[in-house]
């Protein structure tokens, strides 16, 4: 990236002269584009939504735990998932962070409060920092990141929703030498 010629050319790029007039005189490009997209995809979205809602209900409607998945595994009180079983729990050694990729499939709103670390969305944007609550509903792919994890410590995230209060617990299991996640009421 030290190419001086490239940087000089890059820095000399200016917004086209007509752009300001376009903004002031035609301030609805998104709406026009969106209408086209809506018309083309409305039927598809509606069908996908119906399928998603039916699937979500089938998966979570009769469950007594919130619909939280790691990989394809629905977390319940009995299931303990370890990093040896799934690549959804990763220790990023280079930056010393422990990451748990999980998915929420829940028809009702869920409030998540990480007591340790922070939660990111699919775009890598921080949704919630330590001890702050945020709400998710429907289908969301999330990453819980715990910086500088210590094997002697237990990390938790509180989850509350229609089915009650739960705790997602992340701890190191010495027997299997791997990180484990469990969901407890």
């Amino acid at each position, binding site marked *: 990236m030290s*190419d001086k010629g*490239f940087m000089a*050319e890059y820095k000399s790029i200016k917004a*086209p002269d007509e*752009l300001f007039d376009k903004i002031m005189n035609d*301030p609805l490009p998104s709406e026009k584009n969106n209408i086209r997209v809506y018309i083309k995809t409305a039927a598809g979205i509606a069908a996908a939504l119906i399928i998603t809602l039916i699937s979500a209900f089938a998966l979570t409607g009769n469950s007594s735990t919130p619909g939280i998945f790691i990989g394809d595994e629905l977390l319940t009180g009995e299931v303990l998932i370890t990093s040896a079983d799934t690549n959804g729990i990763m220790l990023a050694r280079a*930056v010393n962070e422990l990451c748990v990729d999980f998915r929420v499939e829940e028809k009702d709103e869920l409030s998540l409060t990480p007591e340790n670390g922070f939660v990111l969305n699919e775009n890598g944007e921080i949704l919630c920092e330590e001890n702050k609550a945020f709400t998710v509903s429907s289908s969301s792919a999330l990453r819980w990141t715990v*910086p500088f994890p210590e094997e002697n410590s237990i990390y938790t995230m509180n989850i509350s929703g229609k089915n009650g209060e739960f705790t997602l617990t992340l701890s190191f299991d010495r027997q299997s030498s791997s990180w484990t996640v469990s969901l407890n009421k």
Partner: protein
Amino acid sequence: MGRFPRAEKDIADVYNKYSDMLFRVALMHSGNKDDAMDAVQDVYVKYMGSNVLFLSSEHEKAWFIRALINRCHDISRKNSVRNHDELSAAENISYNEYFSGDSFLVTDAIEKLPEKIKTVIILHYLEGFSVEETAKILKLSSSAVKMRLSRGRDSLKELLEEEMYV
């Protein structure tokens, strides 16, 4: 402009402050002049229609860049279903207006980076934002930005080496 809560002078002010930078970032992101113009236009339209108050000039700048990046990602998703050859031809024509000679090696390499990595590379290396500033703008942790920069540097190195030997 009665439907918008902001005065035309305010809009002109923020246009003069950020439009060149936003256009450059959008151009490198989308690789296409028309898409870049649409993205920048959308951001200003969003600003015109919003009541957001900025706590500082840094907050204001971050808001504009973040809105632009989100819009670029939307456009990128939309373009991913378009014919790839058609898109590449359009991109080359677009870059011809701004770059020459060996610079195309760099634009081609940046073009091939994954979206998230491309964003931090553009903000940090091309626009000169520090790691902490980039992290604040993108609402990421500094370590996440460092990780993406490191991956981006490795990918760019590989891509540039490949292109030099083609």
